[in-house]
């Protein structure tokens, strides 16, 4: 579909919202524009209405201020009206995300009561502007009011406003009962002409929700039905707030605001006119002007001259804070325990194999047989040497016969035989020795090689034990680092606690320490027994009276704790002391940054350990391979030599 807004072609970009009657798209190349496209082809009534709205805008450009007023009509190629372009809001939150306390603390953590009153004033201003031009919003509800990135309210769904063109009235046709005045309850919206006074009711409900913590002024009575309660004019918030101490009492707001709400929700307002947006604007602006910061808690805004801070009172009756406390609550921490990184590291460590076990070394195949053979060779007598044997025998015989001749006293022949005989024999022995020397050397060599083979496994084991010992150290160090990493959450909390403990003025702290509980004039709720409990728990001076330290002590019920805390607060005021401002966001950021740096350091050390184990294991495995190969080689050599020598033995030759 090609679209044209009368001036140029409009290219639709991503869908940014959808409603009952159409879609809202971004406009390509126009970051400040949005286009609403109807799902069904608009009828003549709607086309006329849009044309008239665009004309009105030319006369009164202020209509598009904080309002998604149709600026130009979008037509397709055939000239049929398909939608319109309007201002696009950069980031938008429906107003209920501001007035709903819990959501506010998340989405608008810095919003105070003053913020709420100021937004209320701006809403009144928008309505005032529209009413001046005869425009009635009609379908007032919490989804048609959005807050932009600056927290300014905008009315959207402007094409459903009720617009007057001379005698002709373009009706709104719809409405939400929660925002519908009693006189219109149960009436069919499709035929009703709304008046500004009807709008004023819806506006007042919206303002009420902003000022009174998201509460609807009509609680719905027994049947829970807001429409019925409005029809019966049961504006019962003042009674409900009296019954429930944790609701903001009507009296917390200035008289003019209270009166205006009474008029807006009472029967009188229906007949004689409810407060106009202009009046609201004035009252709310001066209300916002009057709000100051509570002396005890920066997040609390208190009307000037109020005797007590309503928020402190509420927080004392219910452990719930309607506003994010300054500093800590307003600080949206980006710190995370990084458990994913930790898990990743632990997984890496667990999946990295430890260096091989010293006992895994296997001796090469057939080692036993080779060793047995070598041993047999070593233990075997050396091979015989036949020629030298004969020489020795000859020498022996000669010497023997020489000896015999000596007995027969045949002098020269004895001499001639005995001397040379011994000489020949000696020569025989020496010859044999000379011939056996290489053999003995070979046996010695064999012996050395045999021992090398036998002790080869020991070599490996010694090496492996070293790696295993280092690996145990690695594992221990790693688990220590893991614990420290896990402990970072607690450590960070300690730092934050310390930061917050230090938030009290030292002079005031000293003054409070000078007030011993024993002699102090404590609230009546603190009986002698309770006083004893406090003293026993080392709560001895006013400085020790801190909510966190009191909670959980035996016999100290919540009202007693509150009484004590208030007593201390009264003292603080009397001493003219003031708590130091709560820690600044920067201080929290510093803690988080610090924790982050520490964590990263731990992670680096852990990664280093993983790498070290990987290297150690790889080295040990390589070593194992290498040693095994050498073992195999040694054995082969031993085998070769033993077999050769064995053959020599078998053939009896040296």
């Amino acid at each position: 579909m090609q679209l044209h807004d009368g001036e140029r072609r409009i290219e639709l970009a991503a869908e940014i919202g959808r409603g009952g009657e159409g879609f809202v798209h971004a406009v390509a190349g126009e970051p400040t524009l949005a286009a609403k496209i109807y799902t069904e082809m608009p009828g003549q009534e709607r086309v006329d209405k849009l044309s008239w709205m665009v004309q009105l805008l030319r006369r009164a450009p202020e209509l598009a201020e904080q309002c998604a007023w149709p600026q130009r009509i979008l037509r397709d190629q055939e000239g049929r009206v398909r939608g319109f372009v309007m201002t696009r809001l950069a980031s938008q939150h429906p107003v209920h995300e501001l007035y709903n306390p819990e959501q506010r603390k998340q989405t608008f953590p810095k919003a105070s009561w003053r913020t709420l009153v100021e937004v209320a004033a701006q809403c009144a201003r928008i309505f005032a502007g529209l009413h001046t031009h005869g425009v009635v919003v009609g379908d007032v509800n919490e989804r048609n009011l959005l807050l932009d990135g600056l927290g300014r309210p905008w009315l959207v769904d402007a094409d459903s406003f009720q617009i007057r063109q001379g005698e002709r009235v373009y009706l709104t046709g719809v409405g939400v009962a929660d925002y519908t005045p009693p006189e219109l309850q149960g009436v069919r919206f499709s035929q009703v002409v709304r008046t500004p006074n009807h709008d004023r009711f819806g506006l007042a409900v919206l303002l009420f929700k902003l000022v009174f913590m998201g509460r609807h002024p009509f609680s719905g009575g027994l049947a829970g039905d807001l429409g019925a309660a409005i029809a019966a004019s049961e504006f019962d918030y003042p009674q409900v707030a009296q019954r429930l101490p944790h609701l903001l009492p009507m009296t917390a707001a200035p008289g003019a605001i209270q009166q205006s709400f009474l008029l807006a929700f009472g029967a009188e307002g229906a007949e004689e006119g409810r407060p106009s947006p202009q009046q609201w604007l004035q009252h709310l602006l001066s209300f916002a002007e009057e709000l100051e910061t509570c002396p005890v808690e920066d997040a609390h805004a208190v009307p000037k001259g109020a005797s007590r801070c309503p928020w402190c009172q509420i927080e004392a009756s219910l452990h719930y804070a309607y506003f994010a406390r300054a500093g800590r609550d307003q600080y949206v921490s980006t710190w995370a325990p990084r458990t994913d990184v930790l898990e990743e590291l632990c997984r890496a460590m667990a999946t990295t194999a430890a260096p091989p076990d010293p006992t895994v070394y296997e001796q090469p195949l057939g080692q036993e047989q080779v060793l047995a053979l070598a041993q047999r060779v070593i233990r075997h007598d050396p091979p015989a040497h036949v020629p030298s044997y004969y020489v020795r025998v000859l020498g022996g015989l000669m010497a023997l016969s020489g000896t015999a001749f000596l007995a027969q006293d045949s002098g020269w022949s004895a001499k001639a035989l005995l001397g040379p005989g011994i000489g020949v024999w000696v020569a025989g022995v020496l010859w044999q020795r000379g011939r056996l020397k290489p053999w003995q050397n070979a046996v010695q060599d064999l012996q050395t090689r045999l021992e090398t083979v036998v002790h080869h496994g020991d070599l490996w084991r010694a090496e492996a034990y070293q790696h295993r010992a280092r690996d145990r150290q690695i594992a221990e160090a790693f688990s220590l680092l893991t614990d420290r990493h896990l402990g970072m959450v607690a450590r960070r909390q300690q730092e934050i606690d310390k930061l917050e403990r230090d938030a009290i003025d030292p002079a005031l702290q000293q003054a409070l320490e000078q007030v011993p509980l024993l002699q102090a004039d404590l609230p009546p709720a603190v009986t002698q027994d309770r006083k004893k409990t406090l003293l026993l728990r080392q709560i001895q001076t006013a400085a020790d009276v801190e909510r966190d330290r009191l909670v959980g002590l035996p016999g100290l019920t919540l009202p007693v704790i509150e009484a004590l805390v208030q007593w201390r607060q009264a003292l603080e005021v009397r001493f003219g002391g003031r708590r130091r401002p709560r820690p600044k966001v920067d201080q929290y950021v510093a803690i988080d940054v610090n924790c982050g740096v520490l964590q990263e350091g731990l992670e680096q050390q852990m990664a280093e350990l993983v790498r070290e184990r990987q290297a150690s294991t790889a080295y040990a495995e390589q070593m194992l391979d290498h040693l095994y190969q050498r073992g195999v080689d040694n054995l082969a050599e031993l085998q070769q030599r033993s077999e050769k020598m064995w053959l020599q033995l078998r053939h009896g030759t040296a």
Partner: protein
Amino acid sequence: MSQSTPFGAVEFAANPEPRCPCVLVLDCSASMAGQRLQELQKGLAQFREELLGDPLARKRVEVAVVTFGGSVKLACDFTTIEHFEPPRLQAEGLTPMGSAIATSLELLTARKQVYRGNGVSYYRPWVFMLTDGEPNDDWHAAIHLVRDVENSKQAAVFAVGVGEANFEVLRQIAVRQPLQLRGLMFREMFQWLSNSLKSVSHSATSEEVPLANPSGPEGWAKV
């Protein structure tokens, strides 16, 4: 002083939006075991996701889960969608449908008391019952209970039958036409339920919201 802190005060101080309570009454008898229960479980998870995506519905719709299989159990007490964790369903035992309905309606009465005590308005509660069998306890009392709450507009009771559910009984119990689930279209059913609750929670507490017809040709149910 007459001031007191009612039950759930913090919850409603933190989020005072009107509540749209819905009790899911789920048959977890032995016959639901297997694929049926698995699909139902997936449907529940999707139901939560769907409603979580709607900024207003997540603060208004409150879910409680009552299961009946062997005995009647409160598997999950009322909680806004933001805090809703779908319970693990387990199939066992017979089908005490009658007392499951009675329990659910009591639960609603008590919850409405809490809303009123905290000055928070509410929409007409929904009871959404799902069964694949027939009651084996005394269910005749349930007929009157359901008729009473429907006539006085205190709650809307929907009955959905799966497989071989006894529609004769369902027709007697529910004032509204009971619906029969097509196959195991639990996800489609919960899609419809979350859409319906979304439109209800966007409306006013007093409005009747027209619901999409679940028994259309694309729907998850047949009549």
